């Protein structure tokens, strides 16, 4: 099982280590640091590294490396999933996951890690359970604690760990009972030069914020559940009922959680909300090129496309650029050659355009590669797959909760090739 965890910052400094079995020397990280040196980008460090006596499995997240050391055959996905849980736990407890935050709460992070694994076996990874044992710091609580000497560590048995619904703690009470669901869809797409869709799919997720007293039993149904190709559920969802009736029936965890994720990859169902006309060309002789990009709405289902942003990695040999945008503003970082054009809301009457000249370094050959464009966008009140929540029913409790559903569509990995 998982032997040790090291947190390493991008410059290669180890700033936290935790061992669940015998202590593994820090020097084991040298193999990782070596691989990190070799990789061009921190993202490119291979996640599984074999050293003479250990395996190093790492993730890169929030600009930090979470590196775990294992000694025996352990499913790597198990380790990677766990490392992501650690990152999420830090995020959840302290509002962000960064080196500073971890250093600020070193002891609490250490205590949490101790609760999460026992001898390398996961012990408590549910945020609800952890929070019962070690309370997250709040301004008020730290004041109270320092004044009264009480601690952040709960001294009751985390009840959730024993029941068959480990994700929910007992005795939840709210004065305002509310249940909100966000249906968030991300479009992953690759469009080719002519604007034809090479590949498109939708990654959907239903995020829930449920603050209901007692033990509510909820049933959520969709208007059109058949359009989902693959679904993954929070453990609370009763799979049998989904199989037979296509409804989500569950006793929810308390607070925020991801109820389900889903996948729509039938290409004809995936609407592409914008089109991009672009040309990035370099003249055969001389050291100049032109860039001309226009973005316009396509299948938007009558909604406004907002937050549009175009990112281009320009070739390394570019010396300078001189562009004008008819809408929004652009920034260009000559060090990373990253051009970001922040457009904002898309106005169908007046299409935003960015054009101008690119100049290459003197004597540099015509760039060989074609830069891809990365598009960001957001559409409020629309799930682009057409998924709609039908109704939410509550059983088991008497009160009437407030209910709400929100839809939002975003661009995931949305790329336009040139």
């Amino acid at each position, binding site marked *: 099982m998982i032997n040790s965890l090291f947190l390493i910052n991008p410059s290669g400094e180890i700033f936290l280590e935790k061992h669940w079995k015998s202590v593994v020397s820090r020097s084991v990280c040298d193999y990782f640091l070596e691989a990190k040196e070799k990789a061009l980008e921190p993202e*490119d460090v291979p996640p599984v590294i074999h050293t003479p006596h250990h395996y190093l499995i790492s993730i890169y997240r929030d600009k930090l490396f979470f590196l775990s050391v294992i000694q025996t*055959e352990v499913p790597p996905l*198990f380790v990677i999933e766990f490392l992501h849980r650690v990152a999420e736990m830090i995020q959840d407890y302290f509002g962000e996951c960064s080196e500073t935050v971890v250093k600020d709460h*070193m002891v609490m992070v250490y205590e949490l890690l101790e609760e999460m694994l026992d*001898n390398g076996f996961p012990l408590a990874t549910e945020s609800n359970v952890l929070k019962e044992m070690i309370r997250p710091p709040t301004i008020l609580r730290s004041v109270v604690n320092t004044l009264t000497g009480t601690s952040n560590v709960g001294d009751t048995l985390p009840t959730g760990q024993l029941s068959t619904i480990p994700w929910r703690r007992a005795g939840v009470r709210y004065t305002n009972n509310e249940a909100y669901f966000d249906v968030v869809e991300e479009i992953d797409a690759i469009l080719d030069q002519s604007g034809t869709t090479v590949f498109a799919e939708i990654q959907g997720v239903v995020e829930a914020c449920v603050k209901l007293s007692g033990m509510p039993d909820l049933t959520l149904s969709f208007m059109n559940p058949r359009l989902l190709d693959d679904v993954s559920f929070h453990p609370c969802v009763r*799979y049998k009922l989904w199989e037979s009736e296509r409804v989500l029936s569950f006793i929810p965890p308390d607070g925020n959680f991801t109820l389900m994720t889903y996948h729509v990859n039938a290409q004809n169902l995936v609407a592409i909300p914008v089109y991009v006309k672009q040309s990035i060309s370099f003249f055969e002789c001389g050291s100049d090129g032109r860039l001309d990009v226009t973005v316009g709405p396509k299948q938007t289902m009558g909604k406004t496309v907002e937050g549009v942003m175009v990112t281009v990695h320009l070739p390394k040999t570019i010396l300078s650029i001189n562009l004008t945008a008819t809408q929004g503003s652009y920034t260009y970082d000559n060090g990373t050659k990253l051009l970001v054009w922040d457009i904002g809301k898309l106005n169908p009457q007046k299409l935003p355009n960015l054009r101008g000249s690119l100049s290459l370094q003197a004597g540099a050959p015509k760039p060989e590669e074609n830069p891809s464009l990365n598009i960001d966008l957001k559409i409020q009140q629309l799930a682009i797959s057409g998924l709609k929540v039908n109704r939410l029913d509550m059983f088991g409790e008497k009160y009437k909760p407030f209910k709400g559903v929100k839809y939002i569509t975003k661009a995931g990995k949305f790329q336009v090739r040139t």
Partner: protein
Amino acid sequence: MEWANQLCENRQFGSKMTDSKYFTTTKKGEIFELKAELNSDKKEKKKEAVKKVIASMTVGKDVSALFPDVVNCMQTDNLELKKLVYLYLMNYAKSQPDMAIMAVNTFVKDCEDPNPLIRALAVRTMGCIRVDKITEYLCEPLRKCLKDEDPYVRKTAAVCVAKLHDINAQLVEDQGFLDTLKDLISDSNPMVVANAVAALSEIAESHPNSNLLDLNPQSINKLLTALNECTEWGQIFILDCLANYTPRDDRESQSICERVTPRLSHANSAVVLSAVKVLMKFMEMLPKDLDYYGTLLKKLAPPLVTLLSAEPELQYVALRNINLIVQKRPEILKHEMKVFFVKYNDPIYVKLEKLDIMIRLASQANIAQVLAELKEYATEVDVDFVRKAVRAIGRCAIKVEQSAERCVSTLLDLIQTKVNYVVQEAIVVIKDIFRKYPNKYESVIATLCENLDSLDEPEARAAMIWIVGEYAERIDNADELLESFLEGFHDESTQVQLQLLTAIVKLFLKKPTETQELVQQVLSLATQDSDNPDLRDRGYIYWRLLSTDPVAAKEVVLAEKPLISEETDLIEPTLLEELICHIGTLASVYHKPPSAFVEGSRGVMHKRLPARTGSGEGTECPDVGNAAGGSAPEAAPSIIPSQGDLLGDLLNLDLAPPTTTGPNPSTSGMQMGGMDLLGGGLDSLLGGDIGGSPAMGAGFGAAPAVMPASLNAPVGGGLGDLFDLGGGVGMPMGAYIPPKTVWLPAMKAKGLEISGTFARRAGVIQMELVLTNKAMSVMTDFAIQFNRNSFGLAPAGPLQVLTPLGPNQTIEVSLPLSTVGPVMKMDPLNNLQVAVKNNIDVFYFSCQYPISMLFVEDGKMERQVFLATWKDIPNDNESQFQIQDCHLNSEAASNKLQGSNIFTIAKRTVEGQDMLYMAIKLSNGIWVLAELKVQAGNPNYTVSSGTRRDRSCFTCPSNCPMASGCWLS
């Protein structure tokens, strides 16, 4: 005190309080200050001090000097303080074992605490203190906690057993904790079950043969129930454990699959992949025509696709596993090509894996899409990726013949971009395409030649030179081109030098008139001016060949080359099977069996896919052979009877080969309906020559060699001429031995002639060889080796040719064979490829052994068993044929066949027809049953025979290459 002041300050600005403050006091006397704090009367002060100690510890400062003071804080009601002290203890107990003893009392007391949380915490912490003296005290509390009324304590205790085992395995066994742990698998609480399984699995890893996880249908049922209710991590442990189980039959297999399938929709990707492993393994047992089989296949694709939208690290592991799944069952993902399309901001390790899978999925149906993508990738930024993409285009051309033309034109387009490394990669792969499709795409050579100057990598230069040499006759200025390379001959890498030498020799042989000078130049460069022995040797060989016998040189140098195979990088089937059993593990990431690299796993069990038959006994059979762990099967002694029947052994009686001799069934999915193994063998067996006995009809005297051939039997005279021995009809006799034939003619083996035959003597298969030296010199140092073959035949000892073999001398050798060698299906099945070495060279030949040689002596089946088995043979597995013109009566035939270990189990006479029921058992445990119908006065016999898939019948699952098909005909 500075620190105290600071604390006060912090109190005033409470909201700003963070742990960073613990790092600010790094001044002298820190330890001393902390000591004072720790011994303070105020709880709060104590706790802050311990926190400070822990903070120093986490950043690697040595605070072990504070050990006694910290331990003193342990006896407290404050849970947080207690936990902090425990954290400290776990870190430093090892370095201060004597002082750690001080803590034992508190632990033991805490294990009795009314609060289960405290009990669990105490037992958990105690297990983490890796000090022998403490572990001794741990046993009693642990025993209590394993039986605690609170499941939370039990589940913590279960893990504690694994910890203790890690520290002192013997102690755990002596104290009987393993049995208690096994009992916990039946616990009422799913979390306890999951942890018990996890602990047992971890312990089992260091005891591969201990059979700790003894899985039976009852325990499987308990696990499946717990699976639904335990945490996500518990589900992973349980699924991984389930994957080690071998269901009794396809029905059980299906019911497990049905209960595991919902896990495919779990949010945790590790759960999904472990479920995929269980399903991939168990579906192996389901009949392919079952509706459920198709449903299951369909259910596997979406979750695999979804894994690819997770974080890149998860994607990577998923892709490595998908790579295996695609090789094993391409049908699952064949329509999902697009999800493997590369996004430009994927990490490089994801890109390369996706590319690999795209090529594996490439087929005629989607090749256009794939090529368009690959062409796109070839213009990306990342050089490594671009190179791999170009190579991928070449691999597509070789894999999908119909696309070759399009691939070549895509490669030409890429060459036109003149991007240096793209051009070089393209030329390397075009060379492979030329080798796969000779004389088809030579029109592009002109374009290639244009880029000659830009090639600066050895591999590309060598490829180009090969092309020029190979097609010298079509390139007008081939000599000029090669000459241009020759100028810097000494600066080239060996690869290029060798290639250039060969190419110029080829050119010379094709256009001798104008290139004499050139060839002399290169030969002298290679032989005289080079100090590379490889190059020099090759140069001399060419030189001598050219000067002594140009015709022979032409035959050698311009010989037809074997075509390159379609997919060179496929994982070997047996390894693939093993890896499928290890889906989701490190082995699946490295594509190596765990035995090859996992440290600390002393002798990993080889895992195999179960047989489709679902034969309970049968599937255990291979495990017996492999239980020895890493030792290769060929190393296992095979002839020694397993029962220790010494007397029998001494007398060299016919002993049944021990079960371990059965070769490992290698491939499971192989369905070969109607593999005609014996072919018409048996037919001629009765019909053939009966030694010129006057009772026999004339005209068959010379038949045995001819008959089988005419029946297009793959075994040739295989079983064939069992009756050939003629002789005393009506009494048992020895097995049939075919006459010796020449296997290796002298002219092919530098004067060594080998002829031989196979025989079964006293239960041992013998290869009888006659070696004749027809050369002028003495031959010594003989050795023999077999290639892998269908029945795992391998020499059981060295070739006993002790004295040197002089010219014109002949020696007869008998080589005992075992059947425990590595197995590979051959075509025909009874083909055997042999390599013989002597002091002169190594020679290769292939021969075919009669299948009757593999019939073992204990093939006499119980009548009841026979009856039951016979009924169970599916009709498809049965076949019939006629033996013509056999003039033996049924008894004589029966006796004759018994001599070759074909046993008559029962006889029945119906309406003047004698029905003989016979059984044969092959050395790999496969049974063949036959019914022989003999009608008095009618020289034609009818044989119906079949094999059955059944556990009571086969000691070896019928997934052996030939078992699923019926063959005796």
